[in-house]
């Protein structure tokens, strides 16, 4: 067990609601679970200076992002008594209204699942080398920055 098993988190294109439903369904054999916490990021049609965001195009330095995510995953499992944890992030152009981030934690008791899910979302946004380019309805764009 000395070798790191790096899981992929990237999905080309949007994350579908049926994928999320299927992912939930798979947990019904894990009867030690009492609570699941899920966060979904959805592309918002912000209006900036009269221009409307129609999509966000995501790119990443994937190799580094997956290594960072691996460290976050290990730290989260160390800190919280979780049964499982799944993270998916879109790459490519995701239209407004579609889902681009799916974080899913499960635990025997709700507090661990809820706290872990929130911490993963915050760390992922702060630490993973991923960039979103907001595409406007007039063919222009701007680079998103996380606060």
């Amino acid at each position, binding site marked *: 067990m000395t070798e790191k098993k790096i899981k992929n988190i990237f999905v080309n294109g949007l994350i579908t609601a049926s994928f999320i439903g299927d992912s939930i369904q798979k947990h019904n054999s894990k009867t030690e679970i009492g609570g699941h916490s899920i966060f979904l990021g959805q592309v918002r049609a912000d209006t900036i200076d009269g221009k409307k965001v129609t999509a966000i195009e995501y790119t990443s*330095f994937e190799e580094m992002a997956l*290594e960072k995510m691996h460290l976050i995953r290990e730290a989260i499992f160390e800190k919280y008594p979780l049964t499982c944890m799944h993270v998916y992030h879109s790459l490519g152009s995701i239209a407004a209204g579609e889902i681009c981030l799916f974080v899913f934690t499960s635990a025997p008791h709700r507090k661990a699942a809820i706290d872990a899910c929130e911490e993963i979302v915050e760390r*992922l946004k*702060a630490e993973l*080398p991923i*960039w979103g*380019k907001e595409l406007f309805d007039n063919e222009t764009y701007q680079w998103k920055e*996380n606060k």
Partner: protein
Amino acid sequence: KIMKVNILFFGQLTDVTGTTTLVLENISDTKSLAATLQLAYPGLDAKKYIIAVNSNQVTENTLLTDNCTVALLPPFSGG
């Protein structure tokens, strides 16, 4: 032997460089790399970014090795 350094640009930095990759030769450390890139792409001056060598962020001047990869990473905006 010629030492090669692979350089990767991401996000809004690619608007300045017009490319996502670049190979430079005989650059010994990250400080001289930054100076070289600044000359080649004056617009980089106004941009915020951090530097990662072989996927590890460096904050001090760092010696580069043959065939290493240096990534210039503007502020993240995933999620």
